């Protein structure tokens, strides 16, 4: 029996899918399982059709799968919404009235009258708790352990609500048990109790906490999906985390505020998506000119223009790389795991501060909206060094320095004056049109590129060291690629995950050279990373697996595409 269950919940915006997802995640992790959740939604506040996907297993589960073992449909059209992810093996749980007959026939239907049960308890709001109970029952979770998690979930509610939720869960659970007996299911999450004390964290939360770990104490942003969550998270905990949060009038203001904050001794972050980042481009260029640290979290969604606002894509890689007029160094980090979201957001602050450059943390909707359990990461004990100096009289902001990095003073700390200018400037930061000074300053800024290259993160290799085929990915595709390769377990195939795409680690060239065939997997149409590899290393023919409908890759899709590529050989 397969010990890895994929659950999908479908319904309209406003029906509480997110609450049900959180409740189930709590129940599963409380029962000692590994959990993975991700969601896809429409750009609307009410109505439409959204879904969330949950995996639960005694094994580690961290990537999106297409397969649906259990489908909970809260509204007519939910089964159809998932298309061919539903098949005759899929256990469909639902209110008979809420699912059309033809939809019921698409899978293995079992009726659970959660509306009726909820009605008897006094309010339709309990329906989702009944559904959670039904799933827990169908999967054979320990009832008392699961019920405790439900109590915890509603701990802050009044007694009446808590009591009713408990009853709703139990009634759903009994119905779920009966269903499992009737249907003779071919899947189970495996034995519970194997995981404990781990944190269930999303990409959004990990990026936000990573920024704090990097010493972030200032955030200016303008709301834009899918990057708003980082702002909301930090604003909600601004007192606890001691961070100033400003909602700016637009992204132009946001980036100029972040630069102002760094100039005056703060550690500033902006969080945005493609359209907002476009507005920030002049500010990005200013960071390059005044040699200011700056951290930009860029959560990608499909463009061009407004595109698909709530969907996912990896379409802004080359944009992030070339954004901003003029020539200046930058670093682009591309986390692919929740751990990397945390550690790379932290690293972005250290790099930006150390080399006085803008650093972009490039994520996407899929990664930000996905969660799974992981051990609480070891946060380094070492103090975050704020690389500023107390200035003395005659301080020159752009004084030549041995490593090319002029010690950074801030106004009001020391006797010196700190001048920065968006015009070309001399050592004092004052405007100049002297051509030899210009050349010196261009070279001063350029020299930082090789420093950043020395610090570039090596790509992560997995699979057979004696590979003939190398499967390359960057950012959020990491888990699905890795799971897919592990599943095939084939000889002669290796995987390479890039958590930094600029500057690229020099070892990359060797990895590419050793392969007979390189396949680059990207969530975009034009193969941007493949183009970057060609541009940087002159890499020859690179095969591509690409997806650009606005949805993330599933493990199955990657496996099928790799099968096809293998057949082509």
């Amino acid at each position, binding site marked *: 029996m397969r010990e890895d269950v994929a659950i999908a919940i479908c319904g309209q915006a406003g029906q509480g899918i997110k609450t049900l997802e959180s409740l189930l995640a709590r129940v599963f992790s409380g029962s000692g399982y590994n959990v993975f959740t991700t969601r896809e939604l429409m750009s609307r506040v009410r109505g439409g059709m959204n879904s969330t996907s949950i995996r639960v297993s005694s094994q580690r589960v961290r990537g999106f799968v297409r397969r649906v073992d259990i489908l909970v449909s809260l509204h007519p059209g939910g089964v159809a919404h998932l298309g061919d992810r539903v098949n005759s093996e899929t256990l469909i749980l639902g209110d008979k009235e809420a699912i059309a007959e033809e939809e019921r026939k698409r899978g293995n239907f079992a009726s659970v009258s959660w509306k009726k049960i909820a009605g008897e308890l006094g309010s339709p709001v309990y329906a989702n708790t009944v559904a959670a109970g039904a799933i827990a029952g169908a999967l054979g979770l320990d009832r008392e352990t699961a019920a405790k998690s439900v109590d915890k979930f509603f701990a802050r509610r009044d007694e009446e609500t808590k009591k009713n939720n408990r009853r709703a869960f139990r009634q759903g659970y009994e119905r779920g048990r009966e269903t499992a007996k009737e249907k003779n299911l071919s899947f189970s999450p495996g034995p519970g109790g194997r995981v404990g004390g781990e944190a269930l964290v999303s990409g959004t939360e990990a990026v936000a906490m990573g920024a704090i770990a990097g010493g972030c104490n200032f955030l200016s942003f303008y709301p834009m999906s899918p990057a708003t969550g980082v702002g909301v998270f930090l604003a909600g905990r601004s007192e606890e985390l001691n961070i100033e949060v400003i909602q700016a009038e637009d992204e132009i203001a946001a980036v100029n505020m972040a630069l102002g904050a760094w100039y005056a001794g*703060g550690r500033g972050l902006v969080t945005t998506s493609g359209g907002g980042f476009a507005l920030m481009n002049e500010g990005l260029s200013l960071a390059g000119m005044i040699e200011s640290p700056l951290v930009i979290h860029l959560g990608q969604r499909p463009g061009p223009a407004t595109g698909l606002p709530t969907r996912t894509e990896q379409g802004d890689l080359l944009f992030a790389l070339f954004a901003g007029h003029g020539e200046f160094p930058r670093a682009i980090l591309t986390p692919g795991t929740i751990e990397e979201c945390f550690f790379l957001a932290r690293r972005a602050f250290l790099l930006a501060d150390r080399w006085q450059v803008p650093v972009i943390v490039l994520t996407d909707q899929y990664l930000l909206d996905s969660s799974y359990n992981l051990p609480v990461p070891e946060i380094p004990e070492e103090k975050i060094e704020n690389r500023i100096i107390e200035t003395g009289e005659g301080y020159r902001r752009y004084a030549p320095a041995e490593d090319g990095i002029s010690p950074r003073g801030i106004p009001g700390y020391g006797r010196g004056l700190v001048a920065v200018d968006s015009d070309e400037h001399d050592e004092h930061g004052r405007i100049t049109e002297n051509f030899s000074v210009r050349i010196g300053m261009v070279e001063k800024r350029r020299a930082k590129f090789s420093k950043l290259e020395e610090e570039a993160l090596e790509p992560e290799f997995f699979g057979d060291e004696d590979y003939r085929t190398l499967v390359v990915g960057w950012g959020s595709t990491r888990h699905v690629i890795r799971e897919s390769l592990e599943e095939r377990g084939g000889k002669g195939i290796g995987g390479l995950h890039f958590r930094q795409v600029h500057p690229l680690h020099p070892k990359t060239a060797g990895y590419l050279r050793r392969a007979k065939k390189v396949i680059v997997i990207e969530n975009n149409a034009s193969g941007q990373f493949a183009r970057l590899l060609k541009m940087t290393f002159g890499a020859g023919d690179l095969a591509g697996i690409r997806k650009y409908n606005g949805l993330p890759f599933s493990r199955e899709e990657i496996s099928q595409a790799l099968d096809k590529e293998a057949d082509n050989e």
Partner: protein
Amino acid sequence: MSKTRFDLDNATIAWCPGCGNFGILNVLKASLAALQFPPEKLVLVSGIGQAAKIPQYLKCNFFNGLHGRALPAATAIKAANPELTVIAESGDGCMYGEGGNHFIHAVRRNPDLTCLVHNNMIYGLTKGQASPTSLRGFRTPVQVNGVLLEPFNPLAAAIALNVSFAARVYIKDIEQAGEILQQAIRHRGFALVDIFQPCVTFNHLNTYEWFQENTYYLEDDHDPSDRQAAFARAIETEKYPLGIFYRQTDKEPFEAVLGEHLAGGPRPLYQREPDRERLVKLWESFCS
């Protein structure tokens, strides 16, 4: 003018001879000297344009950023270190045109900074196109049939947004301009001073003589705490009143409110220490 501690030796000034900016520079330096600010506690934030070059010509910390973006940078500088005195200074095109949206929201936000706008009703650095404050009918090489747009009225706009402090000066009157500038800099909250100045090279309509003839001082009995009266005076255009139109003293500045709830209150960010223990606790709150 006597020497001040803000004088910069060897500054090569790029303004046209006779430019109103010289007067503004002198008045600014004299006002700062009179207020006895140490230059190292002062930050001048400017955008782009002839006016925006002013920080290059005096002794101070400065952030000469992007066109139109002085106010967001200035707001954050003050928020990041409330102990600094921050002046955002630029021209009418920079503050009211390119940065118009920031102007609106900076007034609403009310950081404790002084916003000095050199208003010569023309674009100087780009050589003579209309600015947001150019008068209707004013002809330029671009506005060949004269300006069609209603001129932007910064004082009326700011008072409509319930600005903390709003004044207008004419730079030829050094004494009055200096007096008002000092009050603006001392004011706690967002203080706008719209500074009338001629552009001797490109604006042959709004000359020294024109400003002399078309301005007058608000009467002594004008009550700057009366918002309606202030607004009524701000929309006068037959002749333009000078002086302090509006002032309120009980409005908390943005950065004070922003920092109020944080550990240690509003104090410089560079003096704050990251708290590793809290972060560990936050992570643990996500554990089952």
